[in-house]
């Protein structure tokens, strides 16, 4: 491992928090695809700078949630202050860990806004992925200085020449200037840190101006309440200050202020250009919103920093406990998760098919999956989720407008038009799959916005696609049509009027709410036929014939029949059979109690669950690190 001088904390008097001059500060983040080795590189930096001792080192030190560690993704970002010496001069480096997924674009943008530069980290065996490209563009929009780096150069399959050319072209540097490291072995990491000091601009806030600090993350901690991570732009914060949240005007006392390196260290304050954390005693991250500006209550700033916005759920899904008696557990669990997730919103929902549950809004599919997994794992719940739905604006002929987040809330009456969210999607794919991807996008109502060759055999395709198509099963199909090579990024970019209809599934003329869907008129028939077929297979025969119909309004577009059950009798029942038969009857009665009644049709909940589950797998699988 190359030796760069480590600095003991007590030797670094010139870079103490709250008194480090801005020219000795460097704030950066790492932009990388999920499994391109960001956490491993960060671990190596912690080790090389000496702030984590060898024996305390554990893999992916910064990822705190089990689920993050397991899946190798970072949902919540964090900041670490590391000392580093170049040419005998001490510097304080702040590494801000960014979430790596499209669902958290807003959080990413706030993390980027807290930095002057970004390391673009790309796997030397795989090349850049669509989500990384999207975050790179985002970083460029924030005028960040980009340091392109190829990671995993120790891998046998690494092709550093090829991918250096690719990212060199993207960033606009000579391929030879693309750094090469191995987070695993540590090769090149010291040089990279030197490079950070040499090439990234120092912060240049106004030292004497009223304080303005931006919240780029806020995390709920059971023992400490909400820990808020901030980047100070102008002025400074002192441990005894009272602070204001500029979006709400709320006042808070500071209980603690400090920096992470990587464990929290209280400090007398945080100076201009610096990154740190503060604790105010609030118990809910909603009181400490990402993107908000903090200032001092006395002689505070008049104008907030730019870029704050409220998180807005894009995807809604019903979450229902499989065991109905778990409903209160689910409610408490959501209340707890909410403390740490400002974007999580929910309200009670009742479904004839699935019982009591919640309609939950998510930033995207990964967010949905993470929340669901946390609920199941941390709260020991078994859940079923309905097909994700986007938010539609329905304009009625009488001029009223209705927002629909749940197909079963679709208004009755004459509809004038329906507006759906659309996305700008970027797909990176080997050129041999261009045809397949174009065909897929076309079938998903996409329109091609442009196409660029990143290298000889890799292409960037830009599409406008309805969000509803993406949340349905787009990603699975994309992966299967490109043998897993395509990567996808999308960002909600607006809305469009589309010829959409609500398809209801009826059992004996009674709608089954969990299966209603809003789909494009051209696809309504397919949806109806497929769903009717699926339900026919899953719903047991009843004592009478049960028609399954798919309907748009009053018009039936598809139909299946479940024939009446003709035989349900044990033919023998003599002396020795009576006890056994009575017990069987009791068991069957118990089973009957667990049935859901749709009209007079008794359906085992498992049938609904199976019908919903077979639609699963529409989450981006690359969010999972194997």
């Amino acid at each position, binding site marked *: 491992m190359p030796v760069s001088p480590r600095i003991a904390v007590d030797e670094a008097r010139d870079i103490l928090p709250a008194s480090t001059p801005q020219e000795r500060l460097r704030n950066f983040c790492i932009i990388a695809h999920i499994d391109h080795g960001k956490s491993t590189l960060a671990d190596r930096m912690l080790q090389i700078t000496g702030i984590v001792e060898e024996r305390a080192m554990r893999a992916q030190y910064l990822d705190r949630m089990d689920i993050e560690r397991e899946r190798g993704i970072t949902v919540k970002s964090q900041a670490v202050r590391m000392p580093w010496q170049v040419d005998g001069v001490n510097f304080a480096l702040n590494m801000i860990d960014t979430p790596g997924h499209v669902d958290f674009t807003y959080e990413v943008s706030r993390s980027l806004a807290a930095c002057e530069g970004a390391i673009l980290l790309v796997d030397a065996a795989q090349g850049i992925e669509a989500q990384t490209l999207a975050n790179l563009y985002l970083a460029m929009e924030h005028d960040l200085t980009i340091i392109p780096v190829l990671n995993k150069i120790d891998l046998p399959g690494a092709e550093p020449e090829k991918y250096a050319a690719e990212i060199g072209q993207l960033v606009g540097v000579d391929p030879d200037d693309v750094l090469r490291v191995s987070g695993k072995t540590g090769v090149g990491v010291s040089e990279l840190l030197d490079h950070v000091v040499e090439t990234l601009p120092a912060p240049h806030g106004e030292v004497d101006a009223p304080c303005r600090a931006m919240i780029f993350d806020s995390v709920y901690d059971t023992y400490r309440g909400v820990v808020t991570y901030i980047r100070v732009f102008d002025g400074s914060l002192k441990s005894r200050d009272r602070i204001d949240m500029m979006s709400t005007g709320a006042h808070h006392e500071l209980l603690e202020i400090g920096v992470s390196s990587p464990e929290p260290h209280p400090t007398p304050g945080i100076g201009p250009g610096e990154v740190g954390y503060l604790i105010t005693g609030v118990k809910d991250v909603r009181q400490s919103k990402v993107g908000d500006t903090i200032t001092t209550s006395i002689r505070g700033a008049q104008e907030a920093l730019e870029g704050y916005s409220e998180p807005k759920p894009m995807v809604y899904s019903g979450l229902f406990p499989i065991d109905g008696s778990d409903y209160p557990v689910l409610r408490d669990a959501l209340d707890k998760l909410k403390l740490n997730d400002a974007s999580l919103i929910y309200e009670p929902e009742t479904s004839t098919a699935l019982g009591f549950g919640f309609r939950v809004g998510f930033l995207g599919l990964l967010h949905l999956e993470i929340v669901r997994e946390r609920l199941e794992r941390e709260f020991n719940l078994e859940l079923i989720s309905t097909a994700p739905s986007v938010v539609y604006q329905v304009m009625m002929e009488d001029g009223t407008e209705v927002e629909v987040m749940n197909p079963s809330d679709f208004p009755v009456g004459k509809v004038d038009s329906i507006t759906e969210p659309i996305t700008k999607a970027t797909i990176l794919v080997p050129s041999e799959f261009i045809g397949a991807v174009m065909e897929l996008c076309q079938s998903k109502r996409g329109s091609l916005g442009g196409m660029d060759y990143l290298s000889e055999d890799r292409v960037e395709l830009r599409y406008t696609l309805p969000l509803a198509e993406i949340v349905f099963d787009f990603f699975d199909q994309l992966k299967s049509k490109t043998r897993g090579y395509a990567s996808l990024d999308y960002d909600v970019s607006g809305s469009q009027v589309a010829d959409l209809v609500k398809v209801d599934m009826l059992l004996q003329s009674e709608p089954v709410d969990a299966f209603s869907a809003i789909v494009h008129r051209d696809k309504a028939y397919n949806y109806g036929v497929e769903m009717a077929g699926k339900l026919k297979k899953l719903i047991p025969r009843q004592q009478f014939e049960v028609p399954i119909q798919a309907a748009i309004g009053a018009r039936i577009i598809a139909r299946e029949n479940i024939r009446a059950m*003709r035989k349900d009798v044990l*033919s023998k*029942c003599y*002396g020795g059979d*009576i006890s056994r*038969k009575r017990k069987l*009857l009791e068991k069957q*009665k118990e089973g009957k109690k667990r049935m859901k009644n749709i009209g007079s049709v008794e359906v085992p909940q498992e049938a609904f669950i199976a019908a919903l589950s077979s639609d699963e797998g529409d989450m981006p699988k690359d969010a999972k690190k194997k």
Partner: protein
Amino acid sequence: MSPLSVYIHVPFCAVRCGYCDFNTYTATELGGGGSQAEYAANAMREMDLTLASDRAAGYDYERVSTVFFGGGTPTLLPADDLVAMLEHLRTLIPLADDAEITTEANPDSVTRASLSRLAAGGITRVSFGMQSAVPSVLATLDRTHDPEKVPQAVAWARDAGLDVSLDLIYGTPGETIEDVEISVKSALACGVDHMSAYSLIIEGNTAMARQLRRGELEAPDPDDMADKYELVDDLATADGLSWYEVSNWARTPAQRSRHNLAYWRGTDWWGIGPGAHRHRDGLRAWNVKHPSRYARMLGLGEMPVADSEQVAAEDRLVERIMLELRIADGLAAEVIPVERRPMLAVHRDRGHLDPVALDAGRAVLTRSGRLLADAVIRDLVP
């Protein structure tokens, strides 16, 4: 004092059939006094103990109204053994003058002589396990008798003065609807006054279930079973028999099996023999299954009971609805719990309950209702 029925289980067979999950053994020599030769003596000892135990509990019976030798294959024992058991029972409790004394038999386990001996010894009725008249179906069921022998056995029994019933099984894998027609017609051609027909139920612990799992046999289809049941009912009805329980048909009410009706009406009965069940005023008890263990316990002067349960009042109501609804007389509507009674009209409207009988206050299954009896029962029990 109420009448008593007595069931005597003879747990021996010449061959074990692939579909059978009854408590039966093919070995002639079982250790510990449990072999066939010692069976009658053991059963008689159990009768003694049962009588003593009933009396100790304050139960006494004036008459035995029905006796049923079931199996297994009771006629695998010498006719004298069956007669001896009956004689012994008679010394404990007198038989009613019109007592119905039935034995099950395989068509190939009887002779003209053995049937005469049984009749002379007091047996009044014989129920033959005919199962089918089609050789390929009998082969699938592992039945060894030649179908040609059935009419002969029936004739011998009738000559001996016995009432005769034939048992059929429908729904055997590979059996066609034509096969069922042949079987029912040949059963009826014997001129019997009573017939039982059971859909084949493949229990999980049988050889046939294993064949099914290995894919060597095709699983029975419920619709096919329903078609076959309806055919059986059509043919029996056309021949002048009428159903009196889901799986039983008789020419006149007098020819119904009174022993089985006793089960369905919840009266008291003894269960003698390994694995046999008894019922006494809500107390159900069942014997240990293995003949050797059974014999050993009797040798020690113990009742060979494996376990028992006292059926709670609510469960007795469940049993009553469950059993009486299956018989043609049906069930008085007022027996059904008030909150369940609205389901009577629902099932009438679905065609499962006879509307005329319901107007008269009785729940009586229609033919489609018989095929869905369990579903109807689930809706009517508390």
